[in-house]
């Protein structure tokens, strides 16, 4: 039975390390690679994949900026340009932004909880393999010359059977199914882990804000993502088996697609943004050396953003001819969401102002985030107004707005978070000097690159055009925008180089290089496969700043993989839960699922026959196996 041990700090438990190593280590070589359920290894490959795609889709953006740098350029034709912005948008929204936040959660949540793994380790593996299937679904056909070309939201009737011939639309739609099933798997996993696997003493009211952010994000994901899978599945049904959901001629409704899509699409913006809020709170706390100002306000703000996010999707559709009263309601709702976010911004500013800020690279990214995101938020309040949006929709103003909130609001905190947790993940610190240079290049380049787009939008430049005539007078600002992008790209290249070089030659980090307050800073850097030798016991919001000795809880098995399950509200220990070990079944199940998804582009029968391999793989996955401990107990 587990026992509360007040006098055994982590270091004294080192003798357990050999035993823990034997049960938590992965098999060596390729077998371990394919079967691992270690949340850190899976998160690492998730992160590498998403960041590689971020670079590739960023290069596509640079290509488009070069194309627009002068009027009348023909280096890209209209078709190539359509494919470029579709690939860029679809990759960034579906294959980078959401998965990268999941990757961070998969890596960080167990560490911040003092746990050894997520609640459903094999589901983590399944999630990654399926996500990788989504990546291949979009990029392999692209390599073969079949690229979706209708933008990152593919509205019918343009994407319907009459106007979207071939398989380009189907590829896009099924890529979404892949990534959204993967995201659902990750979100269920993260939500259950946060609710049921908190260390003793970490009541809901003592949960770090990052965990609150991930909990709300995960619940939002579970509610929002089925909508987009519904939208794309109905679209595929229209195209493949001639259903009439989106056919006005047969009594269907093209706007139905937009409603379902944006019912997902707008919460998705916050599904990307709220984890970033969690990064910001963690970084602000550590680098101002005080607990975050207004913890309760922050928690309530995150929850209200999560709720309001589901009530304002129609502001993406102001131009489609909705009743005026409805439009006014969504204008009000869209403006209302600025209030909780404003509260959060003020809380961070208050934390920085009243703390002892140390402007290392992570906090620089946070200040860059605050400045940029406030501009993006203000242009958001502008476009929330239905009459103004009628003028601005589908212009570069919207392009500027969405990049201010997504890059400024989500990627800047992400870069800060990567710098902040890099030493924990790798054991080495990234160069501060190069980190600051990269920050200023990206921050300045980004603003030079995207601020002129507000003006271009007000001047009437539409988005999604491959070129424009010189007489339009947009040439100078476009050239400035391209120059800004080049500066930012240089900064991004320095970030990548800094990370790669620091991985090999960076300064050794030790357990806690920044003086962090949360639990992940009390395990080794990089964490061993079992993370913590004993479960920490928490008595405040900032356990890392409590004076030693720090209480821990021992008693988890040294013979089998076990994790501690606690109660939802007060984190009272309830029982020890066996934790599954390495398995090939998540990969096989993902392959079977991929077969079904890919096949259903070509024939509806794939759903029928494809479910047989999926069922077989799931039976293999869940086949009851006797654990060694039980076998011994049953032996005579």
């Amino acid at each position, binding site marked *: 039975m587990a026992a509360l041990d007040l006098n055994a700090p982590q270091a004294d438990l080192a003798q357990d390390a050999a035993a823990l190593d034997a049960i938590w280590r992965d098999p060596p070589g390729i077998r371990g690679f394919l079967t691992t359920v270690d949340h850190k290894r899976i998160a690492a490959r998730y992160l590498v994949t998403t960041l590689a795609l971020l670079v590739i889709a960023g290069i596509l953006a640079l290509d488009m900026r070069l194309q627009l740098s002068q009027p009348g350029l023909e280096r890209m*034709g*209209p*078709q190539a340009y359509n494919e470029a912005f579709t690939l860029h948008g679809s990759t960034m929204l579906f294959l980078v932004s959401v998965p990268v936040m999941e990757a961070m959660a998969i890596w960080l949540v167990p560490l911040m909880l003092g746990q050894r793994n997520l609640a459903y380790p094999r589901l983590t593996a399944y999630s990654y393999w399926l996500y990788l299937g989504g990546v291949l679904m979009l990029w392999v056909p692209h390599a*073969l*010359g*079949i690229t979706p*070309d209708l933008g990152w939201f593919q509205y019918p*009737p343009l994407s*319907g*059977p*009459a*106007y979207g*011939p*071939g*398989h*380009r639309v189907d590829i896009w739609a099924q890529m979404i199914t892949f990534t959204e099933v993967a995201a659902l798997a990750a979100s269920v996993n993260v939500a259950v882990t946060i609710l049921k696997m908190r260390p003793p003493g970490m009541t809901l009211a003592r949960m770090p804000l990052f965990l609150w952010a991930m909990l709300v994000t995960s619940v939002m994901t579970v509610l929002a993502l089925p909508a987009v899978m519904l939208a794309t599945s109905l679209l595929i049904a*229209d195209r493949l*088996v*001639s*259903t*009439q959901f989106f*056919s*006005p*001629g*047969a009594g269907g409704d093209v706007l139905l697609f937009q409603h379902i899509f944006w019912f997902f699409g707008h919460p998705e913006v916050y599904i990307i943004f709220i984890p970033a809020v969690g990064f910001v709170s963690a970084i602000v706390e550590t680098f101002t050396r005080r607990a975050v100002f207004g913890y309760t306000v922050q928690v309530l703000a995150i929850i209200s953003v999560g709720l309001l996010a589901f009530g304002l999707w129609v502001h993406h559709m102001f131009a489609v001819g909705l009743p005026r009263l409805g439009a006014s309601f969504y204008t009000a709702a869209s403006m209302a969401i600025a209030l909780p976010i404003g509260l959060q911004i003020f809380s961070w500013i208050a934390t920085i102002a009243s703390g002892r800020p140390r402007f290392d690279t992570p906090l620089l990214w946070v200040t860059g985030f605050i400045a940029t995101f406030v501009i993006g938020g203000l242009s958001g309040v502008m476009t929330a107004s239905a009459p103004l949006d009628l003028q601005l929709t589908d212009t570069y103003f919207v392009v500027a707005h969405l990049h201010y909130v997504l890059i400024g609001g989500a990627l800047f905190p992400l870069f800060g978070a990567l710098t902040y947790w890099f030493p924990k993940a790798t054991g080495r610190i990234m160069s501060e000097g190069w980190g600051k240079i990269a920050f200023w290049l990206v921050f300045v380049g980004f603003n030079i690159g995207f601020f002129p787009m507000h003006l271009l939008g007000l001047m009437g430049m539409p988005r999604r055009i491959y070129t424009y005539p010189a007489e339009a007078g947009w040439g100078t600002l476009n050239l400035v925008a391209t120059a800004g992008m080049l500066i930012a790209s240089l900064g991004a290249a320095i970030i990548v180089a800094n990370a790669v070089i620091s991985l090999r030659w960076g300064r050794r980090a030790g357990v806690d290089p920044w003086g962090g307050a949360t639990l992940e800073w009390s395990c080794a850097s990089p964490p061993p496969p079992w993370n913590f030798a004993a479960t920490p016991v928490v008595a405040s919001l900032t356990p890392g700043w409590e004076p030693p000795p720090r209480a821990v809880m021992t008693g988890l098995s040294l013979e089998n993989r076990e994790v501690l399950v606690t109660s939802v509200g007060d984190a009272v220990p309830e029982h020890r839960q066996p934790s599954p070990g390495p398995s090939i079944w998540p990969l096989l199940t993902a392959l079977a699922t991929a077969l079904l998804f890919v096949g259903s582009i070509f024939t509806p029968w794939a759903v029928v026959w494809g479910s047989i391999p999926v069922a077989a793989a799931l039976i293999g996955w869940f086949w009851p196996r006797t654990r060694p401990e039980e076998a011994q107990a049953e032996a005579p």
Partner: protein
Amino acid sequence: MLAACGSEDRPIERERVRTPPQGAADARIPYYQDNLFQVARGARFFSWYGCGSCHAAGGDEALDLADGKWRHGGDFDAVFASIAQGRAPGMPAYGSRMPVETLWQVTAYVRDIEKQDAATRRRQDLDRRAEGGGRGS
């Protein structure tokens, strides 16, 4: 797979045809007949020019384009000629109304109809008929 890539091509930037096909083996024919985008363009023009008002699905056997039977020949150049020059008794000559490339695209679509199943064709017609811009059928 390579054939599939060709059929998926969106030949927006290629030079357009300016002359009718030279026989049934004209080298330009595959660029239209085997390309999904060109066939879909042809379908749209088919609807815009009101072809469906006589050649509706499930209509008169002589006017049925879906049964694979061709009274004046089913080769690309023959179908092209039927559309461009008209056929007695009732088929008007569209050569003076449609640009040359449109004739190629409509020809490709008309020859493609027999390969489509009825439900797909009906579903696509529903979308095109609901379109505001064309005359429809």
